[in-house]
């Protein structure tokens, strides 16, 4: 709830002032607005997050977890019935000074190996897509809980009042997907703003109601001026803080109308940049938008790449998907680094789980929640590190195990938030992202 300001109701400051100035003013007037910037529990390493969500469960054996023993045992019986071990069709090579081994399908991303902190001991509780994805996003798959992005926004507020604080581009909407980005019981302002839809991924996702094709901007300003005049009269009469909130919200919306399309308009990017990102393709455009949103001060940005569920067509699927994500991710890491933003931007790559080392067919893999890989980059994690391991075949994590809850605790820690203290009271109980679990993985902190 917005707080009333004792003197002048704060509206005079909002008249006729340039957008950004007004935004700053708003911050001062109303630091406790639903999304006002808040102090973390302790000094933060990361100020914002870009989560590259790979839906379907990308194979760790074909990306970041080399398994020479699996290749050697190719075709031998698996411990799972009716299945045979299946070695990766691709080679892994050492990269950078750190010598992290990455599959040859990702040559561009591999150039940034020294920026990555690869987690090879990931594990999670459920081996079904919807549940695992939900746990990855909210910590829970049994109950509807706020998303990681919502918790982040709730904990830190937004850096730019002209833009949403939590944006999900081409989000997953089927199989209960919208719940991955919901604020659940947290105040609704912490929900994600959704751009596009993963079912129909588009290159130029749009946000609803952000443009008016009937009124020119000056005409709309006239309209807004009369509206605000009427609202201010009511505010004087009723002295209700919510009316003041409404007045501010209209001003923010007006500025957002201006700011959001600007951030999303990539016309100002050079040809070479667009080419580096493969910005004509859906995922490339998403990575570029993610960088632009990050620059503009959006707190939590999630982008999505689907179709990693390779029960069959592993060969074709991995080739295609890796090609789609390789250049854009490399460009994103490169740009963040060049702008000095990698220091305080946490990039997360991964899916809801990994895959089994075996398959009943000869070109596919099953779901594997017991061991898989993700990586983090920037934002206060160690660089050029491979942490944890699965067994020799890749069935399950055996060393440096990191559960989804631990990952969440660590992400919040990097953002300056104590996962045990970031709570919200709902229905008589204090809730946390990590419920009663989660340990910060101290070994990977820079």
């Amino acid at each position, binding site marked *: 709830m917005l707080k009333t300001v004792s003197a002048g109701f704060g509206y005079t400051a909002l008249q006729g002032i340039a957008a950004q100035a007004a935004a700053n003013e708003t911050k001062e007037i109303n630091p406790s607005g639903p999304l006002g910037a808040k102090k973390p529990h302790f000094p933060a390493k990361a100020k914002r997050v870009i989560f590259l969500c790979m839906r379907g469960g990308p194979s760790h054996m074909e990306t970041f977890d080399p398994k020479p023993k699996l290749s050697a045992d190719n075709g031998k019986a698996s411990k799972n019935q009716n299945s045979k071990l299946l070695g990766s069709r691709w080679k892994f090579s050492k990269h950078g000074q750190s010598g992290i081994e990455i599959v040859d399908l990702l040559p561009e991303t591999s150039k940034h190996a020294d920026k990555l902190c690869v987690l090879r001991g990931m594990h999670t509780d459920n081996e079904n897509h919807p549940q695992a994805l939900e746990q990855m996003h909210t910590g829970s798959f049994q109950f509807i809980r706020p998303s990681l992005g919502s918790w982040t926004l709730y904990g830190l507020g937004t850096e730019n009042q002209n833009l949403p604080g939590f944006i999900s581009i081409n989000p997953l909407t089927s199989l209960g997907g919208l719940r991955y980005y919901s604020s659940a019981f947290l105040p609704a302002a912490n929900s994600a703003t959704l751009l596009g839809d993963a079912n129909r991924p588009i290159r130029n996702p749009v946000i609803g109601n952000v443009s008016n094709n009937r009124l020119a901007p000056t005409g709309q300003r006239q309209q807004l001026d009369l509206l605000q005049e009427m609202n201010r009269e009511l505010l004087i009469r009723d002295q209700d803080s919510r009316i003041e909130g*409404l007045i501010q919200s209209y001003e923010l919306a007006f500025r957002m109308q201006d700011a959001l399309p600007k951030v999303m308009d990539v016309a100002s990017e050079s040809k070479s940049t667009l080419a580096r990102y493969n910005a004509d393709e859906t995922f490339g455009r998403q990575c570029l938008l993610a960088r632009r949103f990050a620059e503009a001060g959006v707190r939590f940005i999630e982008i999505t790449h689907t179709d990693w569920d390779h029960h069959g067509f592993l060969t074709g699927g991995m080739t295609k998907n890796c090609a789609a994500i390789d250049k854009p991710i490399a460009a994103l890491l490169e740009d963040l680094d060049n702008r000095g933003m990698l220091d305080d931007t946490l990039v997360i790559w991964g899916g809801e789980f990994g895959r089994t080392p075996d398959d009943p067919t000869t070109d596919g893999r099953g779901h594997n929640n017991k061991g898989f890989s993700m990586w983090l980059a920037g934002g206060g994690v160690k660089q050029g590190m491979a942490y944890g391991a699965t067994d020799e075949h890749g069935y399950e994590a055996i060393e440096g195990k990191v559960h989804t809850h631990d990952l969440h605790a660590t992400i919040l820690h990097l953002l300056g938030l104590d996962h045990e203290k970031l709570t919200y009271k709902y229905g008589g109980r204090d809730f946390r992202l990590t419920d009663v679990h989660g340990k910060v993985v101290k070994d990977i902190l820079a």
Partner: protein
Amino acid sequence: MINISNSLTFRLVAGTFISFLIPSAVIAEDARLDFFEKRIRPVLVSHCYKCHSTESADKGKLKGALALDTRKAMLKGGESGASIIPGKPTESLLIKALKYSGLEMPPAEKLPPQVIADFEKWITDGAFDPRDGNISIKKPGLSIEEGKKFWSFIPPKKFELPKVRQNDWPSDPIDFFVLSKMENQKLTPSPMAKGSTLVRRLYYDLTGLPPTEIQLTNFLKAFSENPAKAKLDLVDSLLSSHHFGEKWGRHWLDVARYADSNGKDRNIYNYHAWRYRDYVIDSFNRDVSFDQFVREQIAGDLLPAHSHEERDRNLIATGFLALGSKSFEESKPEVFRMDVIDEQIELVSRSVLGLSVGCARCHNHKFDPIPTADYYSMAGIFRSTQPLYGYSPKGIKATAFAHTELQAIGPDAEKLGPAGLAYFAKLQELTLAQNISRSDRYRVVRRLSAARIDIKKPDADKAKLEADIIKMEQEIKEWDAKVKAHETALQLAMDNPPRMPDWAMAVREREKAEDCKIHVRGETTNLKETVARGTLQVISFTDAPSIPNHQSGRIELAAWLTDRRNPLTARVYVNRVWQHLFGRGLVSTPDDYGVNGSRPSHPELLDHLALRFIDQGGSTKKLIRALVLSSTYLQGGADESQGNGKSSDPDNIYLSYMRPRRLEAELLRDAIMQVAGTLDRAPLPPEKAFLAKYNPYREDEYRTFQPLFTPEQIENPHRSVYLPVVRGVLPEIFGLFDFASPDRSTAQREESIVPAQSLYFMNNEWVIKQAGLLSGQLSKDDKLDDKGRIKTIYRRAFSREPSSLEIKRALDYLNRPELLLADPKSKKQPDAMQLRIERLTSFCQIVFASAEFRFVK
């Protein structure tokens, strides 16, 4: 008792002292004592006591109700059971926790293997433990005995009307309680609101719609002649309008987490849920006693009925228990079943009792006097009850085991029901056969495509692969025919349904009633003792009938919920009604009456209302009538307040003025449509129910698991309460304006203010279209000039006349050269007439967007 804050040295002495008391065992114990003191106690002290000791309990930091600082406490254990079983290290939870298997203790870091080995040895050798002292850990939260003394578990009491100074103000006993508190706070009531404020407030509060121009004029005329009579007449006529049920039924639908689709991972439609929605609206319109209303929803199928209409009504009511969101992806049938039961327990306890009993699924309730045993005694009732939520799509693992059905209703239900269900089962069978044949075919396709890749490899056995490919191509052809045959059979069956009864979601008794076992930590694989079916111990009546062996116990559950001695039911209900009329409940946590809930601001008033409600036979209309005719309700807003209530009491706890309330999502949509003249005020006829026209067996939907939400549904001209509530795919205006999440019982909606709402009013096509319809309609009316048009808009939207200043300002706006864009379709610049209408449209949009429109004063 040993004071654990003392040093280790002290303990060594104390331990030694104890061992001297048992001389016969001195020698053996010396070694064991030594081992304990050197290897065990230091570890416990440095790694465990911080969270598991009397001292941590005193500081409120005890975790898991487990203390490890005395022998007895250690043997007794905490929430998860005994921490050690002497002689059996593998069965001891402590060892499991130290080994990070299941539990992980200490949480910071696993202890070195040698230390864990020490503990194993210690337990193997009998867990010698010199630490005397009793368990003095007080469990957090209330015991049942303490709970019975907690305010909300004490039955409501009758109170004398308090003395007040301004005794000409109260018009109802309610006002005495309110005024007395106000006077204590040195506040003065505000004068009665103006007629135009009252009429808008009453129309919105009783029907959810603003008054029409004629209704407004009629009331203001009557009000100027005889205010008291005008108010009474209006209230009585609004209470008898069918819009009353549409407004107040919706509040119950929030609590009942009503939805037209399942939500979660398989968001399939609840094709027949709308009957429950209509039942709720109808019940409020008929002013069914709240007791009866609860009884029907919990046990309607078990109540006597005198006609098939009454029987159907009772059956439809039990849809309440069947409408929850289910995890159809859950692969363990028993987990699925217990999850459904959990949802039902949480629903019933939150909606009727204002308590979260669900917390007790895994452990005794942390705060409230609800032990796990009580949860499982309620679970037994629902375990003995079969929810009928519809046939399940095949391929969904859990429900493939749990055959589910629907309830046949209508005059011929008994005759047509079995054949209808058999038909559904047949469709299911045929679909399954079709899908299996499709996936078998697909398997060959996959092998074939792999072979086609392999054959290109240099080391490929080309001859063999070529033969394989030819064979597989032939196989696929055979499969094509088989698939086709299955598809035809299914289509044939779908095209030829038998004569069907109507269907409803409902519940019925299972063939065998059974008690439930306690599930440790809520796990279906960790069962303990069986508890008898029953209700919460903290609310118990000595003469309560016991549950017959062969029945679920829902009749008894309903009787317990609606017993006039039940301290919660009436309080919870009257408080919700109060909250909807005054913007804030007397208990501001309307679904938490436990230890963590807020205490009532006016406890005597709450009890007064609860008892009055019970004495008046649970009539919602009588309750609301009394509230809206009270002097408290009729007060003006903060601007009319004389007692400075606004500044000293901004949250309006003491009710010395009326605080504006925001229009909820449905009211906003209905009001825009009514003002624009596009609302169809008739109740939605059953044949137009959103899902009624669909074939209830849509295979495509089962494949995509994503309900389609079409624009026609938001364009539906009927009131918003009739729009389908598709979980996760709400109409935009619902999602933006804090519609109650249909995923769980909601007693109080959020009230968010976010820019996306503003953008909606500024740019949304539907809003602009409605504004355009209003301006078009008014522009065509030759009897009106612009001034008349502005007045009409003010009357319809704000229920008042505009001031001369407001008229002038609006006229100025209409005459301004507003910058319109060229028509995007024709690229033509708008002509003069178009411009005039567009300007009026843009003004109408301002009115919809204004704070005055979006709030009720």
